[in-house]
């Protein structure tokens, strides 16, 4: 089948609209259709309304406003012909087989044979959807099960029928992977596929056990969340998020679809409190509240939680469980903790892990698929088999037996083995055949995780490492806590430049943390400031400036490959790279002003040079400086890689990778393409507005102050920034060198770090994670 160049989505509900948006995010045109509402003047009101909603949702569904223009809207009565040139049609309508099949029959008239048709069903088996359909349809049909929200959830479950053309499946999987950035997990045609099958069991188990053991909702969430590597919403917070009404619906559907001997039936019971809450409109965050709710008392709001026994709301009591604290990272200790806490942790987790093992082979063909589905579909840090490895299979099996719980065959057979092992540097998993097999990454996927397993770093210290990623390319990795930047990272970067010069052709800066880097370690900086270690702080700033400058002018290409947040110093590293290959989900910004500082590692100069080179700006030194002043003083952060280009944190020529797992390979390829004939950049010379510009920018800042939009200290910070971006004492005809600008930047930074309001901002941000407006 040919590559997918246009996609059709039918059904403009949350899922359909979100899927359409993600197709558009990939730069691919998409047709979004829905029914004609009864008596509507605008026959395409549903699809159009959906796009309008997409533009407003938070977190944003579109990576850039431009993407919305790629969505063509319509209705299924007048516009089905718009699907005729689509290479893939996704159906996301009501979960009713008869409705879906009626639609499929309509499609038969318009779609080109050999184009893919998929359903986003989460509950209906494929065999039921294709029953009675034509052979041609059955050959082109598959299930593509996205997770909500489709932009951000990386899992895509694909189910192919026995008659589905493998080429169709491959084409859709490839598009979903490369263009939409999804990690594809192939599932058997069994109820709930993989993630929801296990997820529904887990939530139901955690709910009923909480009632049975008399846990409070806070306790249950404190046990089932963080300590197990699950999202901190735990169980009741998660139900509130998903909607209380969803549970009974999916439970009912599982009840009908699952085989009689499935372990789910034993815990499948209606919970009167939940039924009552739904009836009264307490359907969770989308309704009046759920297990938690926000209560308003005049201008104040406070969180309340429901008492599971009485069904009454009461003030939330954060659970402070010594058993959880004592167990720390030791999962066994948590599961064997005395009293209710240990009992609850054990009953929920052990039964969920056992259930996971029972899914092989009926729902999934390997532990890798199940683990990946739970990591990407439910945001678990580790999948169930990784968790079993942490507990020990023998230990778990023995405990399950002791508790009189069922032990699935696959689990019993695996006693004495781990589900994963590393053999000669390669990650392997335990197959259903009892033998180990290599975990094979798709072509074009390169993971630092795998490289690190296979070898030793070229360089390493406490906060960073340098890896050989093959073909003459080295990869610089931050390894500090939360990838915060410190003296060690800067030190190793300097060493790296010398090493790469001698032994490699190019350098990629990349890591596999949740975020590329949130910036400098402000905790260390604050402590240093509190003990007045000014010369040490200034040395650190100067060292960072010089290291990034050395990286910029190194005789080899440097490609930064950010994913997640690249803020402050993290952004400055991106700015100093010769080119960037960014994950589409990159949130980039110079946020120093938020903590009362300004960029100190050359970020100001890099931004000035970029805006100065923009031919669309009016001539003269002021517009570029004004753009930088505006972007930095407001601590602007891009909400995607595409948006980062608008702010010039990325260049138009920089690359964007949709799939996180392909980022390193793409960055490496980009670096290699630059090697031939590589010439380091020429140092910029700046013509800046000088004192008059600074006065003007300060005037603008004072305007915000007068309107109550800026504080007195914001003005101090803005003035320091204005001084730098206007070139300080420079006259408008002076040429300011890169080093002069760095010196100005450093001096202004040092002035700010000595002010009490800046230190108060840093402290507040460290202690609360929130900015302080002082």
């Amino acid at each position: 089948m040919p590559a997918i160049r246009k996609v059709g989505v039918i059904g403009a509900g949350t899922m359909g609209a979100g899927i359409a948006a993600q197709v558009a995010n990939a730069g691919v045109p998409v047709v979004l259709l829905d029914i004609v509402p009864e008596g509507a003047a605008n026959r395409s009101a549903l699809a159009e309304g959906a796009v309008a909603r997409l533009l407003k949702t938070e977190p944003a569904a579109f990576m850039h406003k431009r993407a919305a223009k790629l969505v063509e809207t319509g209705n299924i009565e007048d516009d089905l012909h718009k699907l005729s040139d689509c290479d893939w049609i996704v159906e996301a309508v009501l979960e009713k087989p008869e409705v879906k099949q009626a639609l499929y029959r309509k499609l038969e008239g318009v779609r080109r044979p050999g184009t893919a048709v998929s359903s986003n069903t989460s509950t209906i088996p494929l065999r039921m959807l294709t029953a009675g359909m034509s052979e041609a349809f059955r050959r082109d049909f598959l299930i593509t099960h996205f997770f909500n929200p489709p932009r951000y959830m990386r899992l895509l479950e694909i189910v192919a029928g026995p008659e589905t053309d493998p080429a169709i499946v491959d084409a859709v999987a490839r598009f979903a992977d490369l263009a939409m950035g999804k990690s594809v997990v192939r599932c058997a045609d069994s109820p709930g596929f993989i993630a929801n099958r296990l997820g529904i069991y887990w939530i139901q188990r955690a709910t009923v056990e909480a009632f049975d053991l008399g846990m409070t909702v806070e306790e249950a969430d404190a046990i089932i969340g963080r300590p197990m590597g699950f999202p901190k919403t735990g169980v009741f917070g998660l139900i509130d998020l998903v909607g209380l009404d969803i549970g009974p619906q999916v439970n009912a559907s599982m009840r009908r679809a699952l085989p009689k001997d499935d372990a789910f039936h034993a815990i499948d019971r209606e919970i009167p409190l939940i039924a009552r809450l739904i009836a009264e409109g307490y359907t969770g965050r989308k309704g009046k509240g759920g297990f938690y709710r926000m209560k308003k008392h005049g201008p104040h709001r406070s969180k309340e939680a429901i008492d599971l026994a009485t069904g009454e709301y009461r003030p939330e009591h954060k659970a402070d469980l010594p058993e959880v604290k004592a167990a720390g990272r030791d999962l066994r200790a948590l599961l064997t903790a005395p009293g209710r806490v240990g009992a609850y942790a054990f009953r929920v987790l052990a039964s969920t892990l056992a259930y996971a093992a029972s899914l092989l082979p009926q729902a999934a063909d390997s532990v890798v698929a199940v683990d990946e589905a739970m990591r990407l579909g439910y945001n678990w840090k580790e999948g169930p088999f990784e968790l079993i490895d942490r507990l020990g299979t023998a230990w778990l099996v023995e405990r399950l037996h002791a508790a009189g719980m069922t032990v699935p065959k696959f689990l019993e057979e695996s006693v004495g083995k781990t589900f994963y092992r590393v053999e000669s540097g390669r990650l392997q998993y335990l197959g259903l055949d009892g033998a180990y097999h290599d975990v094979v990454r798709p072509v074009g996927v390169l993971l630092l995780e795998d490289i690190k397993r296979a070898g030793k770093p070229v360089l390493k210290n406490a906060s960073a490492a340098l890896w050989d990623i093959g073909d003459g390319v080295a990869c610089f990795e931050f390894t500090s806590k939360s990838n915060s930047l410190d003296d060690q990272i800067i030190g190793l970067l300097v060493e790296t430049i010398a090493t790469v010069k001698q032994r490699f052709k190019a350098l990629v800066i990349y890591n596999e943390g949740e975020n590329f880097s949130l910036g400098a370690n402000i905790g260390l900086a604050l402590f240093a400031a509190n003990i007045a270690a000014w010369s040490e702080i200034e040395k650190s700033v100067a060292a960072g400036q010089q290291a990034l400058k050395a990286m910029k002018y190194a005789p080899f290409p440097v490609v930064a490959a950010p994913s997640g947040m690249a803020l402050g110093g993290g952004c400055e590293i991106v700015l100093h790279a010769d080119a960037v290959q960014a994950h589409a989900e990159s949130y980039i910004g110079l946020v120093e002003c938020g903590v009362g500082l300004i960029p100190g590692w050359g970020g100001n100069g890099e931004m000035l040079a970029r805006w100065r080179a923009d031919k669309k700006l009016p001539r003269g030194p002021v517009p570029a400086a004004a753009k930088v002043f505006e972007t930095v003083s407001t601590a602007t952060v891009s909400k995607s890689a595409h948006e980062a280009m608008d702010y010039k944190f990325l260049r138009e020529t920089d690359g964007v990778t949709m799939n996180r797992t392909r980022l390193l390979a793409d960055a490496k390829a980009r670096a290699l393409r630059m090697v031939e004939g590589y010439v380091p950049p020429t140092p910029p010379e700046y013509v800046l507005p000088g004192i008059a510009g600074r006065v003007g920018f300060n005037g603008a800042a004072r305007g915000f102050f007068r309107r109550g939009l800026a504080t007195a200290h914001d003005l101090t910070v803005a003035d320091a920034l204005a001084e730098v971006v206007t070139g300080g004492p420079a006259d408008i005809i002076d040429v300011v060198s890169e080093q002069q600008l760095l010196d100005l930047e450093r001096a202004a930074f040092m002035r700010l770090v000595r002010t009490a309001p800046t230190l108060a901002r840093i402290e507040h941000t460290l202690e609360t994670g929130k900015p302080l407006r002082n």
Partner: protein
Amino acid sequence: MQTYKAPLRDMRFVLHELHDSASLSALNGLEEVSPELIDSILEEAAKVCEEVLAPLNASGDEEGCRLENGVVRTPKGFAEAYRAFRDGGWTAIACDPRYGGQGLPHSVNKAVEEMICSSNLAFGTYPGLAFGAYQAIASHGSEDLKQRFLPKMVDGTWAGTMCLTEAHCGTDLGLLRTRAVPQEDGSYRITGSKIFITGGEHDLTENIIHLVLARLPDAPAGIKGISLFLVPKFLPAADGRPGERNGVVCTAIEHKMGIKASATCQLSFENATGWLVGQKHKGMAAMFTMMNSERLSVGVQGLGLAEASYQGAVAYARERLQGRSLAGAKHPDKPADPIIVHPDVRRMLLTMRAYAEGCRALAGWVARSLDEMERAGDQDARQRAADFTALMTPVVKALFSDLGFEATNLGMQVFGGHGYIRDHGMEQYARDARIAMIYEGTNGVQALDLVGRKLPQHSGRLLRGFFHPVSDFIEANAQHPQFGAMVQGLGKAFGALQLATAHIASKGLGDAEEAGAAASEYLRLFGLVALGFMWARMAVLAAEKLPAANSDAGFYAAKLTTARFYMERVLPQAGGLYAAIKSGKAAMMALDDAAF
């Protein structure tokens, strides 16, 4: 024989010139306080201390306290002295005017305390503890308790105590066993035994108000289950006068190394009636609000004794004729030169003087901060002062009491054999000084408080109040034509302190024993730098004043010389302390417990 003259000139210098007492009037409730008012109070206090308290110091030590049938007899003259002290209003000076106090600032009170400690530390413990109890009740007691008890505690008719320690628990109060059982009328019945209760029983006042830490029946285990109770020796009758005897008796008094005229009692509470002060289970918090002031007072005890000992040693060194100056006879007309001509004797005298005057200056700074944290109009200023006070409290308590003991030892040394015998009273100062290193939290505990709690709080925010002014001063004065070298010396010691701080912050984070191993040296280093900062500031100030000073020229000139002595002969210890800190815990943790 002991003699004492209150160092009023130096106190005025510290309060008015160094810490700008004129600006105290900007603080809430201190509008009427002026340098003139402070001077008159200090002069009056000096008279009482020199004329009434000092003459009883040696005799009180000689006689000690006696326990007779549950009644403690203080030494001869103490009761009369206490009456004069009380009639002079000295129990009320820093108390709230609402309860009859004079509402004077800590800044002044601590100076008066210094004089009391110099002249008769044992006597000073009685009103000192009463003031501690007053502060706890005033900040945490119910309005009813305050109205019933504070006026008489303020006017000195009643005294007070703090009952914390039990036989099996001192530092670790979480272990304490004394019980409190709630009664239907809202009172409590307290039962248990307390030891080391200063002023737990005596014949100076008609009633004694004990503040007792005890555990309620529903209390959580450990330090979070302790409540504070007010337990009077005599239950006040309807007319407010002492009525029925309460169930608290003194079963023994301790025989001690020093402060013998201070009754250190074992108290037995048996179904004693008491009332809750503050909230249930929050007794430690109630205690800790007055701890800053109390610990500063203990530091001032070290200062007071260093001053008294210095005065004795100087007088003796001038009079005592022995041998000749190493540079040749200075007084050929006499059979020998006075020993003050000898470098080593001067070393001892100047060390004592540099300690005393440096500590006085630092105490003035911290006392001022106590005033600001309680009375500044601006919330930020109160918070800054609270941060600074919290930081400096362990430093002042431990450093001053250590230096007080060192100084009194040096004082004995100047006297030679005559210091060791009792006639001159020099050994009494050393004996009296020793306890300050132990009570109100041993100096080891102070050091742990500094490195374990004060240093890491809010990423080092508490440190700012000290490090920033010192750093600013060094930056501003490092090139000073006259003081540049001195300030650079301070800069060097301050640099060692910064490095040591960063070292502990980074090492101690992962290994609490590393912080513990560095604690005592770190506190000393911190303290030496703090005194160095005071001396550098005093030197700059003295140099400014000197040209226009007529009768005071000698005072300022001596300040300059003593500053130089401190900078050149004492402060360089900072380098050695830093080296020791940096070496880490290995040397002290390696030896097996059994090998000791």
